[in-house]
């Protein structure tokens, strides 16, 4: 790999680390919400994907049968987690190293740095 390409990759890595630092410093209050059952259930997920809250409306508790209400809870949690995951993926997709997105590199590390060969272990 030529020195210019290596320098470019170093700059990309530095930029990616700065972006990641900005990402983790986002306010802890930032969260992702999703509803299910026409708003009967709202799930809230934190930046890190942790489930923070499940809100069930009193009307849904009274008017929806227990099995359906459970499905709404599951669907709301999944949808909120998908929102959080999408945000993380968007961040990784926007970062590039050597012209490739970080998401692609993580999916296939070997292809991320063409021309590099893993050294063989000496016996």
């Amino acid at each position, binding site marked *: 790999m030529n020195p210019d390409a290596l320098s470019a990759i170093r700059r990309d890595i530095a930029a990616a680390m700065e972006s990641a630092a900005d990402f983790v410093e986002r306010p*802890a209050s930032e969260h992702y919400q999703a509803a299910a059952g026409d708003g009967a259930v709202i799930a809230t997920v934190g930046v890190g994907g942790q489930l923070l809250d499940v809100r*069930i409306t009193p009307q849904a*508790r009274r008017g929806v049968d*227990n099995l359906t209400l459970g499905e709404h809870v*599951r669907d709301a949690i999944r949808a909120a987690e998908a929102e959080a995951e999408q945000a993380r993926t968007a961040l990784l997709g926007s970062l590039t190293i050597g012209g490739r997105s970080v998401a692609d590199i993580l999916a296939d590390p070997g292809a991320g740095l063409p021309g590099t060969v893993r050294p063989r272990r000496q016996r």
Partner: protein
Amino acid sequence: MTDQLNGRLARIAEAQEAVYEGTDDTGTVVVRATGAGRVEDVYLSPQAVRDLDAQALGAACVTAVADARMIAAQALAATIAEVSGQPAPVDVPASVPQTYDPASAAEALRAVARRAG
């Protein structure tokens, strides 16, 4: 060697796909989650819907999800320990440790950025 490694990876993959069950404190809300943490099923018993108000019912769901995921994480850690030959940790840390400090994490990342740039 490759077969052995593939066998170990297959065991870990199985543990990630297996389903584990957790409950709230009353045992009337049951959540099933995979080893990877995906919520597969939420069961609200008739008793839970009858006895808990809407707010408490939501909180019970959060507790049951956390319980299922903790059990799943413990099972996954045990499997990894078994296939790697390393002792299993006594306690699996919560997914978001209380000691997590975003400012410290950000500073660590910026230190890496300074070294790389």
